[in-house]
């Protein structure tokens, strides 16, 4: 092969061990079996592959691109769920679901874990960049960003930091700054997310990013070429050496040397290139000038050209020298696999080409024709007239599939008798200042959550400067109607770690009740499954159980997963991250003016608990604070969840619910405290005697499908719930400036709200301020 073009033949006639060594040396991370099938393919062709061809296979066959470990399990438990509101789901970069008769909403959720562990600012920022492109490439205007992020403990002493790992505070600051600077600059509100701290994330931080967009149904566009003659037009940022082997990096465990060896796998983001790129793409699409659109993400050109052509039933011919470069000395294979940011690929008919070029020129966005469709299902790449790549797209896009070994780690759970703690005030205060409960305003207020002027409920809401955390955010995406999108995420890694099946089912329960708590009807789900190395049977066992739990929890809910992402190999020498199936739910509220918020509204109103409380303390914050490792993990019943939810939504319509908050970590006591924080009031709870449970257990239990509710008209509410056979309990009233909890005259908790609020507000600030 011509060395003039810097393309070299790769000799695969090697013994097994050399073959595997080669895979590692050139950074594609294929297994021996995979290398062997590549070897056989070229043997049949009677030639050796070029470096660019073998690199392309490395991209297409990575775990990140072809889901080779997870696909079988997902097919069985997740993809088979259906819901009538789905327009099309799972198959493309983002799911498309019906909003109303004219509009659809689009959602996507994915991980950017490995890049963020090495370069937190750039990794998180380009995570936002990538998820925005996933939504834009369906023709949708992004309207909301979502960021669930997970780190090790902020107070970890430096000397306990494993070698090659960056300190949690370093990662946390970097990730938040990256999300802030990219999201705020590109002008899409960051409205939802979560922040978690757990020792298991110390050497494997998790950064998930989600995006929701809105599109007129007639403007929905697919990620494929439409017809023969379609021209490939590449738009946006230039291609550089940043982001080479990103997908391979994401498909292996992190190690001590990741910093030095994989830095170039992290891309460099530029929101001020992205902002006009979004406008230009959407303008060209709404003028019906595009036949297909796909973002350049993992695997770069290599994946996007092959997948677009293949999905349209054609092949592609590319002139690689046309690609605009950031730097001169790039090898052809580097251009082909680079994951540089802010790039999109368009399929355009000849007759529309000029108009498309004009639009991008107007916006000062780079635009260049790089290739065309061809009838035969092959991908051909030329460099200055010389053919350097020739493969059938079938072979390229049909990566291997594995049925990985599943080993279920038995987790013995038993309910135990504990001694009643003497000072419940102190325990509640400790819980309120736990970083996983404490106010995340340090993070949230740095994100612009009101840009676009369509945010109807912000993540923190209350009394101007004092906030209650809200269960969901609400965005009104269409100017002329008052219908809103309700957005929330959920995952409690302590619970999933304790019990992957019920922990995952609980995440569905939590996200569902979060949407209901603000008055929304849950409508669709997305999942981002972050787990350890799937080649280790016990890790894959966790994955398997978690996915089964998700399946169980969703099957009666009449909603399904419309988008998802799997991130495996979140593992380093000291172990895996806790199993982390992040769940995103989008709901619908018919009139945003009828939203319900979580802060208490009026002194004297009654406080109700809806739902059943059980002795479920496994993985709970209460037992963590007490240092107890036992307990039963919370179960959930999808039918109860739906029934309770429907009853609450019905009462909200009648206007009798004044505020509502879901019960999650820390149970009833923490939920009520949070409801007081965004108000001027305290609360007095007086509990009846509870069967099988002490009062302290009752106020801290983390049983699912429960809400705290503020009611003005007790009778009407109680009648309605009784009629619908919904378990409820009147537990007290809004009153004074303290949180008082008593049972039959005995005081459990009596603390001024101001004291609790300060603890809650300052816990994270004390580390970060």
């Amino acid at each position, binding site marked *: 092969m011509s060395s003039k073009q810097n393309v070299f033949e790769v000799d695969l006639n090697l013994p097994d061990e050399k073959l595997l060594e080669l895979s590692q040396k050139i950074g594609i991370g294929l297994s021996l079996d995979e290398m062997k099938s590549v070897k056989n393919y070229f043997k049949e062709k009677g030639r050796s592959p070029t470096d660019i061809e073998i690199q392309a296979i490395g991209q297409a066959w990575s775990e990140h691109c072809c889901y080779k470990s997870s696909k079988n399990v997902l097919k069985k438990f997740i993809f088979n769920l259906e819901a009538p509101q789905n327009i099309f789901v799972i198959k493309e970069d983002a799911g498309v679901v019906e909003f109303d008769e004219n509009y659809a909403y689009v959602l996507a959720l994915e991980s950017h874990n490995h890049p963020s562990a090495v370069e937190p600012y750039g990794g998180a920022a380009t995570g936002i960049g990538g998820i925005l492109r996933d939504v834009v490439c369906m023709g949708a205007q992004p309207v909301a960003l979502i960021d669930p992020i997970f780190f090790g403990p902020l107070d970890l002493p430096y000397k306990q930091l494993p070698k090659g790992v960056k300190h949690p505070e370093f990662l946390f600051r970097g990730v938040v700054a990256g999300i802030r600077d990219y999201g705020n600059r590109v002008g899409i509100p960051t409205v939802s997310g979560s922040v978690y701290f757990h020792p298991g994330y110390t050497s494997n931080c998790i950064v998930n990013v989600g995006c929701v967009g809105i599109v007129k149904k007639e403007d929905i566009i697919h990620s494929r070429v439409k017809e023969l003659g379609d021209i490939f037009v590449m738009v946006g940022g230039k291609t550089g050496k940043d982001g080479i082997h990103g997908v391979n990096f994401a498909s292996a465990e992190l190690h001590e040397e990741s910093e030095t060896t994989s830095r170039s796998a992290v891309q460099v983001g530029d929101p001020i290139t992205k902002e006009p790129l979004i406008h230009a793409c959407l303008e060209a699409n709404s003028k019906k000038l595009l036949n297909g659109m796909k973002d350049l993400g993992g695997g770069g050109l290599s994946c996007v050209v092959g997948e677009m052509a293949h999905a349209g039933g054609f092949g592609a011919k590319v002139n690689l020298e046309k690609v605009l470069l950031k730097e001169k000395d790039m090898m052809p294979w580097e251009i082909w696999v680079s994951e540089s940011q802010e790039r999109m690929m368009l399929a355009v008919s000849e007759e529309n080409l000029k108009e498309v070029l004009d639009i991008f020129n107007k916006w000062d966005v780079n635009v260049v024709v790089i290739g065309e469709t061809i009838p035969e299902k092959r991908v051909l790449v030329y460099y200055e007239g010389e053919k350097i790549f020739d493969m059938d797209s079938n072979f390229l896009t049909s990566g291997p599939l594995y049925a990985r070994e599943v080993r279920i780690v038995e987790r013995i759970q038993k309910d135990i008798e504990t001694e009643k703690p003497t000072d419940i005030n102190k325990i509640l205060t400790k819980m309120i200042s736990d970083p996983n409960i404490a106010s995340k305003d340090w993070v949230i207020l740095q994100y612009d959550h009101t840009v676009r*002027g369509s945010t109807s409920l912000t993540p923190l809401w209350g009394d*101007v400067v004092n906030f209650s955390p809200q269960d969901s955010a609400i965005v009104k995406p269409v100017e002329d109607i008052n219908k809103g999108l309700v957005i929330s995420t959920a995952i409690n890694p302590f619970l999933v770690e304790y019990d992957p099946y019920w922990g995952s089912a609980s995440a569905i329960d939590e996200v569902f009740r979060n949407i209901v708590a603000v008055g929304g009807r849950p409508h669709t789900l997305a999942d981002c499954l972050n787990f350890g190395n799937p080649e280790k049977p016990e890790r894959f066992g966790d994955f398997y159980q978690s996915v089964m739990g998700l399946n169980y929890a969703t099957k009666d809910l009449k909603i399904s997963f419309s988008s998802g992402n799997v991130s495996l190999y979140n593992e380093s020498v000291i172990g895996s991250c806790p199993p982390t199936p992040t769940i995103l739910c989008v709901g619908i509220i018919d009139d945003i003016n009828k939203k319900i918020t979580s802060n208490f509204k009026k002194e004297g109103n009654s406080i109700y608990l809806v739902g059943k409380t059980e002795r479920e303390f496994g993985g709970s914050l209460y037992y963590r604070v007490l240092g107890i490792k036992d307990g039963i993990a919370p179960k959930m019943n999808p039918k109860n969840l739906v029934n309770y939810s429907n009853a609450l939504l019905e009462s909200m319509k009648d206007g009798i619910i004044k505020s509502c908050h879901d019960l999650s970590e820390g149970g009833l006591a923490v939920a009520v405290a949070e409801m007081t924080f965004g108000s001027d009031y305290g609360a007095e709870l007086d509990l009846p005697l509870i069967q099988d449970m002490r009062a302290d257990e009752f106020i801290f239990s983390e049983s699912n499908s429960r809400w705290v509710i503020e009611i003005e008209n007790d009778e009407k509410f109680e009648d309605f719930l009784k009629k619908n056979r919904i378990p409820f309990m009147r537990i007290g009233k809004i009153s004074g400036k303290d949180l008082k909890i008593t049972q039959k005259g005995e005081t459990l908790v009596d603390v001024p709200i101001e004291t609790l609020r300060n603890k809650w507000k300052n816990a994270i600030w004390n580390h970060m301020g």
Partner: protein
Amino acid sequence: MLFGIIWGDYLDRSDIKVCVLRIEGTNNEEEMYNAFKRLGTSPEIVHLKELKDIFDYNCLMIPGGFSAGDYVRAGAIFASRIRAKMANELHKFIDEGWPVGGICNGFQVLVELGLLPGFKRMDYPNACLFLNNSARFECRPTLLKHESKGKCIFTRNIPKGEIMMVPSAHGEGKLLLPKEKDFDKLFENDQVVFRYVDKKGEYAEYPWNPNDSAYNIAGICNEAGNVFGMMPHPERAYFDRNKNGISGMKIFESVLKYIEEK
């Protein structure tokens, strides 16, 4: 929509052309456009490159965002491009009494252009919106007290002393002027339009004043009252959905009333 019927003659309104000016990184143009559109006018989102003649319009609005990435200093690049393209026309537009408004990044641009506080005609800044004292970008609701005695044409429909809740979202919003005398002049000239207050209406510290702006100043106008800038976002509080009293809409109504009567 209802607004055309409630607020004056629809036909006249639709003759009012508002230029919502943008470059790359401007990202609040749609909500600004909607604010004027809802009131029945004919706004246009115009890229600076494509602006032909500012006198084609009755009002110039510079929306928020991160124009050109806010590199150098917030608003500085946008300001220098405007200056290069139309410094004289813009001064003439203002001298003829046409309204020019800037929200958030737009306020920063007007300050960088030297149009605010605009004590005399100059083509360089005589004030600055510095980094917030918290040294962070902050997105939070803020309470604003309307202080204008009537000079500012953007707030004439709002009674003096009224309090509005308007979201703020900026990293550089702390207004400082070079001399104490400049502040005296600002107050004497009735150029102080909005100040941050607490729930009781008193001038209070952070977080009520989110950036620790001098004298709690959130928005100012020029001596003639037709150039106006503010950091918080009335276009994001256009509808009083949360029943806080005065809605952001009043600002857009005020300037339209001025144009109609001009």
